[in-house]
């Protein structure tokens, strides 16, 4: 009897191992190993044609002291992340409007969300065209309404390029923030509002005292999405400006791509990646602290 049970147990363990193997292999090869390799590579001097040699923190020294583009890219990435609260606030306003028993709310929700699942490369091309100085929508509207006399080359301008890319990004992610916040709004128990109403609490206080505190996990999730978004916005920047003019719209991720695959400096690109990853971890932890530490609960 025991041997039958043992055989069955061994077979079950073999099954478990076989079932886990493919997924574990993929994540080992494409997540864990690359992360470790990045760190290793960042302390080495290496290229496909040259043997590896330890050089200590030389790459980091170069990055922090001599590399202006790195600082541009870092600043732009931080601006990109720093602007996401504006989009979240807009999305919250829209979510509050379409959450109530407004007729046709479902249609509004669909329209606002429609742009989120689109291919980002295509979104970049659409917005590039909207900003165009001749056939573009914005120049047409601004010129025909008399705000400007001369067409503005939005994406070729050092002042306008970054805000323009961020606006295009807002257009795409707004609907996603809205959906996250709507889910949060719908999980707030209605009786809290009723009790507050009975006590004569004004609407603004209901918002600040009930809605906002209870939305904290959803807002945290939005902020994390916003942080990640600055890393995934490679497609948008690549198509709209490719980091230009100069490096006015360069993000860390586009710079890493250029250094790695444009200049074949894999070791330096690895050091940049390590910095980018640390930035991500620190910002996410910070956001988690601000949200009260229990914000992961929404991610079911």
């Amino acid at each position, binding site marked *: 009897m025991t041997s039958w049970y043992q055989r069955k147990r061994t077979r079950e363990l073999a099954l478990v191992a076989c079932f886990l193997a493919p997924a574990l292999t993929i994540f080992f090869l494409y997540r864990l190993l690359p992360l470790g390799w990045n760190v290793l590579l960042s302390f080495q001097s290496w290229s496909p044609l040259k043997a590896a040699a330890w050089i200590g923190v030389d790459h980091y020294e170069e990055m922090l002291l001599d590399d202006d583009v790195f600082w541009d890219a870092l600043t732009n990435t931080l601006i990109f992340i720093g602007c996401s609260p504006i989009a979240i606030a807009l999305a919250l306003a829209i979510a509050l409007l379409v959450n109530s028993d407004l007729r046709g709310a479902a249609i509004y929700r669909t329209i606002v969300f429609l742009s989120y699942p689109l291919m980002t490369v295509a979104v970049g091309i659409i917005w590039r*065209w909207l900003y165009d100085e001749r056939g573009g929508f914005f120049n047409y509207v601004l010129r025909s309404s008399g705000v400007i006399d001369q067409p503005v080359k939005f994406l070729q301008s050092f002042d306008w390029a970054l805000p323009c890319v961020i606006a295009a990004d807002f257009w795409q992610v707004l609907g996603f923030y809205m959906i996250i916040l709507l889910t949060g709004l719908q999980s707030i128990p209605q009786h809290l509002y009723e009790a507050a109403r009975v006590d004569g609490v004004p609407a603004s206080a209901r918002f600040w005292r009930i809605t906002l505190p209870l939305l904290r996990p959803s807002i945290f999730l939005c902020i994390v999405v916003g942080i990640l978004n600055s890393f995934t916005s490679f497609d948008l920047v690549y198509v709209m400006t490719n980091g230009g003019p100069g490096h006015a719209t360069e993000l860390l991720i586009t710079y890493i791509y250029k250094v790695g695959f444009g200049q074949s400096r894999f070791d330096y690109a690895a050091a940049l990646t390590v910095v980018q990853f640390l930035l991500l971890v620190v910002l996410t932890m910070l956001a988690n602290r601000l949200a009260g530490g229990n914000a992961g609960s929404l991610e079911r």
Partner: protein
Amino acid sequence: MRRAPSWPRHAIMLVVSFLMLVPFYWVVKTSLTGENIYAYPPHIVPVDPHLFHYVDVWYLIPFPRYLLNSVIVTAMAICGNLLFNTAAGYALTKQFPGRRWVVLLFLSCMLIPFQATIIPAYLITSWLGVLNSYLGTALPLLSTIICIFIFKASFEAVPRSLIDAARVDGLSEWRIIVRIMLPLSKSAIATNVILTFIWSWNAFLWPLIVIRTSEMQTLPLGLARFLSVMEDTTGALFAFVVMVLVPGLTIFLMAQKEFIRGLTTGATKG
């Protein structure tokens, strides 16, 4: 209870909807219009509309080829995900030594965004010898951690008594999965298919790194290449954009609820 009138809210939402829809309209208009797209002022309605640009895209650029490549890579990613994630999810419902470590490993991998791995990922793929191939393009997308956990939760929700009854009836482990677990996990399957479809269909950075020749390019790469060759000088570019967006939009409008649920579950990518 006195309610505020609803028309101000409708007014605001109409303005918002207008702003959200203008980009779509502008690109469709440009793809249809017969006028010189650089003529100023541009017309609001397409002048002399025609479909030549769409025909151009189909015949002059290898659009069918890009489409085929995209479909193959996406299909591979979806099959891989369903197979590997259900398997891993099922394994995690069992007790085995080291289970805690496996879960911990998955959870920590979830914190590593793919964008932060591109340099070594490229070196590993080249070492595996699958650069510039469908397999190499799909490989990092073949499994999704968040979906493994979704499947695990879904399998654990299957009533114990049902599984025991099936065992008593002599069903093998394999058939229990196929005949009982999977049919009861339809929503998990839908979530996984949708997430994988979106991520692999729209994937740009990874294919840009792995794919070298134009006949292996997927739709987003084809689009970027067309842009770099032609700039935005022709309406065909915008016809191309519309043709690329239509499949995704159609699927989204058909399965909106599953779509939104799937995307919110996978919010931070797995």
